[in-house]
């Protein structure tokens, strides 16, 4: 007897029980509408855990008070949004009513631009290297992908042990006769490491995507280029890059959206400090809600962040469609 037979019987029995309920239902509402019935569990989960909190957050953005219950909160219209946007010179947060929001916004812009650029450049370079027939290619592919498997909290803790004042890196510097460096307590250094750790942790994922893109380029094109006298650079410039552009675009959009939402590893690594040097928008929202207990202001800030993400997504869709049309 096949070892799968009892399992098959069990599945048949379960389906038989399900039939008792589903068959009359199907007879009643018809075959086509049964699709909605099967979608219902997913829709319920989406509604309860995503849509409802989103709507609640939208409402909170227009209220004030310390209570978390909507009915106990006072409606104040656009007061929270006005407070966030009240600023004489956006480039100088000290002139803004909610200076920490604009510091966080400025930090986020710098973080997004630098981190996304580094991710795209390093991921592409790594993917190109790993696409060549080098010794230990499988091993290196695993090495670069490994950080992606780690939780951002674990990543941040590992780097914190390396970078803190009495960490491994400073121990090495001191043992080599140098002086301890304030890697996490100097504003410039902290911003630098927040970006580097982010790149290190995520690069493997984007490398993998680009690697798949590289492997989908037909080898005939390179052979044809070779016959036409193309060197390595011209092959890259006129074959690899254009063929890889759709994949690069995916990498750009994914890394951009993720960078705007940066929170987890920086929160553990620097806590947003020193001062507000690594305070990014999501952490601003978190601390405003759960430390300052200003849920209304935090919700309003998250609405503004959602707006930014919406603009980015729409831009991506339009550019994507344009690229497809071309």
């Amino acid at each position: 007897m096949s070892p799968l037979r009892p399992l098959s019987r069990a599945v048949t029995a379960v389906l038989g029980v399900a039939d008792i309920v589903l068959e009359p239902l199907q007879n009643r509402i018809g075959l086509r509408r049964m699709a909605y019935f099967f979608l219902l569990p997913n829709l319920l989960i989406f509604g309860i855990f995503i849509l409802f909190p989103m709507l609640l957050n939208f409402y909170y953005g227009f209220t004030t008070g310390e209570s978390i219950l909507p009915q106990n909160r006072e409606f104040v219209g656009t007061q929270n949004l006005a407070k966030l946007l009240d600023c004489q010179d956006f480039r100088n947060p000290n002139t803004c009513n909610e200076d920490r929001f604009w510091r966080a916004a400025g930090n986020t812009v710098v973080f997004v631009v630098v981190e996304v650029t580094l991710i795209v450049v390093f991921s592409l370079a790594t993917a190109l290297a790993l696409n060549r027939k080098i010794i230990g290619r499988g091993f290196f592919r695993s090495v670069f992908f490994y950080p992606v498997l780690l939780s951002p909290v674990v990543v941040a803790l590992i780097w914190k042990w390396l970078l803190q004042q009495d960490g491994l890196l400073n121990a090495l510097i001191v043992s080599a006769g140098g002086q301890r460096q304030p890697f996490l307590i100097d504003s410039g250094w902290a911003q630098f490491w927040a970006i580097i750790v982010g790149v290190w942790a995520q690069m493997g994922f984007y490398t993998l995507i680009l690697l798949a893109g590289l492997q989908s380029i037909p080898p005939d094109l390179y052979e044809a280029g070779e016959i036409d006298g193309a060197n390595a650079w011209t092959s890259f410039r006129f074959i690899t890059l254009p063929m890889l552009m759709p994949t690069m675009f995916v990498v750009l959009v994914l890394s951009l959206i993720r960078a705007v939402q940066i929170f987890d590893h920086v929160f553990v690594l620097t806590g947003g400090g020193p001062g507000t040097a690594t305070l990014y928008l999501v952490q601003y929202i978190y601390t405003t809600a759960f430390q300052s207990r200003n849920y209304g202001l935090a919700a309003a800030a998250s609405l503004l962040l959602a707006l930014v993400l919406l603009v980015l997504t729409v831009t991506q869709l339009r550019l994507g469609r344009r690229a497809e049309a071309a």
Partner: protein
Amino acid sequence: MEKRHLFSLMLLVLLAVLAVGTVSAQGTVELRITWYNDGNEGDVLRDLLDRYEAENPGVKVVIDTIAYADLDKTLQPQVETGNAPDLARVTDVSRYKGYYLDMTPYLSDPEAWAAAWPAPIIEWMQSGPEDKGLYGFMTQATVTGPFINRTLFEQAGVDVPSDSSDQVTWQEWVDAAKQVADAVSAPDLKVYPVAIDRSGHRVWGPALNMGAVFFERDADGKPLMDEKGNVLFTADSPGFRSAAQMILDWHANGLTPVEVWAGAGGSYASARDFFTNGQLVLFMSGSWQIGAFANNIGDAFDWEAIPNPCGEAGCTGMPGGAALMAFKDSKNPEAAVRLMEWLSSAPVHKEFVERSLFLTYHVELAQSGVDYQTNVPGAKKSLDTFLGEIPKLSDDAWVLQTARNSFSLNIAIRERLTQAITGELTLDEAIQRIQQDVDDARASS
């Protein structure tokens, strides 16, 4: 037929098991306590509760221990949605006013309960002057104050200032600590003269002693409040400026480890590890550190608490502590109050504080004294020192501690001073922002 009999038998057994389970569940009252730990007090409580359960077979007490940082994030949704635990250990007592259980109808002797605790503690838990309810008790009293590493003083050959004077200023302490740090620091071991926890609460004491005025009083001597009961805090006063400037100077002159204030991001941070590692001469913190020091330092070096440094306005520390509060959502209020009575009774509470190395506000125990169960000389001496600080606590310190909106001043000072330390703001700008932050918090409360 046989199969049908077997099925019937199994059904009967299942029903019987369920019935027994239901009876058992109905016969046992389960109480839940939300708790956090500073030291070993959770173990001590569990030990006491095991005894209580043995004496009261119908009661089972479950302790839900969570990290202090998550306490209010967990408790607030529970409380507001009507799912509060029976009891919870809280430090922000004002936050849950209106949700506490008035234990008066259930207490065997409400007057005795009220007499067992100082009036300011009872009033702290009440919603206002008209409220006469009894809602909980303090599991521990805390007082802020500094610790010193006496061994470092001895190694440096520097006299401990408090050995020869009852009233030592911050400047005198820092000068002495600097001499010690200079003398004992080595190339491979940097010793810092002074550090203070990254907390606005820790700054309040020194600031008050330097003459800070955090609120005005009305003709009756009560703090000015808005219609919601929030104290109208003021940030800018010469005393606060002096204290803030002192902390900025410590950072600018390399007297304190920068990572405590600048390296902690947006949360509370303690300099405890520096003190424990022997890298700190003077550490401004509070009595709750004693248990951890007794365990982690022991007698590795001589450490002790010293009286709060004085200024022209006094020598106060900040009071505080953790309260065990009963919540009115409790399904078993009578059983919850019985347990509260037992835990707060003099013999049980005495054992709790003696084993946890906590100070207590309990009136009877404060008079009769407690016999702390530690062989670490520094722990005993520190507990005595902090006990001596309690009568010196100023009225303003009590107002700051018990005001419903004091958290906003605490956080604003912590965050804005850090920005001044890292150069993002000047001290003037930091003080303006502190004022704005507390005003905004009051408006949105």
